[in-house]
């Protein structure tokens, strides 16, 4: 499997480590009134879609960037790859 790295081009999947659902970028605010419930969701509850799934991959044996990869869990087809920091900044995080 190849992952088309946004800056480095196609690189072998063996250079990457899977880091889970991309929703992990959205860490809840610890001072919210329902912070406990939000953190239980954040820590334990995951969607398990049969189809397109946004997930985090870490380029451990490469430039050590974190990526958000959109992968079809049925076919393994990868339709989109972005730097996680670009995604986070677009969502107003990582200021």
């Amino acid at each position, binding site marked *: 499997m190849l992952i088309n790295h946004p*800056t*480095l081009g196609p*690189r*072998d999947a*063996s*250079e990457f480590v899977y880091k889970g659902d991309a929703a992990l970028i959205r860490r809840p605010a610890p001072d919210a009134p329902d912070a406990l419930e939000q953190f239980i969701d954040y820590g334990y509850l995951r969607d398990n879609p049969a189809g397109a799934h946004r997930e985090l991959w870490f380029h*451990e*044996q*490469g*430039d*050590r*960037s974190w990526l958000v990869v959109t992968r079809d869990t049925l076919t393994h087809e990868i339709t989109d790859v972005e*730097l996680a*920091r670009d995604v986070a900044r677009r969502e107003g995080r*990582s200021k």
Partner: protein
Amino acid sequence: MPDLIAITPLGATRPRIDSHGPVTLTEVTDRALASVAARLGHEAQTAALVTSLIGAPAPGPARMGGTDLTAFWMGPDQWMLDAPIETHEDLAHQILAQAKGATSVTDQTGAWCRFDLSGDGLADVLERLTNANTRAFTGGEAQRTAVEHMGCFLLCHSPRHISVIGPRSSAGSLHHALLTAIRSAH
């Protein structure tokens, strides 16, 4: 002061040189390394610092640049600076003096070992060890990839001269892997 004896990454007092077929494998110990990483919001200043240090544009992804003092790209807004240790033993401090808080500077000299492959047929050797498309290298590439499960940098000075920079604590394993691949390929 105690009389200390400097040793190379392979544990000898002199750098090791091996030749087999058309390829020479040389342990390189006369380079100083320091990494620079932009602090948040200071990406442009860091690129400008690298540019002023090497006297050439800061290298883009998977590239290197410069002549005497050189830099290669490590990751987004991160570079490794490479200079002769004779004149730049305190490379990190020299850079830190110019960084003005915009950049994190880390001395990397003692963290890495470097082996230079020179001669013909280097792609035949490296294709046995890495995923990197070394056959397409023309000069100026600087790729971080795995060599025998070790995270290494491959620096292509020219297709007949490629440096492998790997973790110093695994110098023996890396040297063994390179030598075995050279003997296999040639």
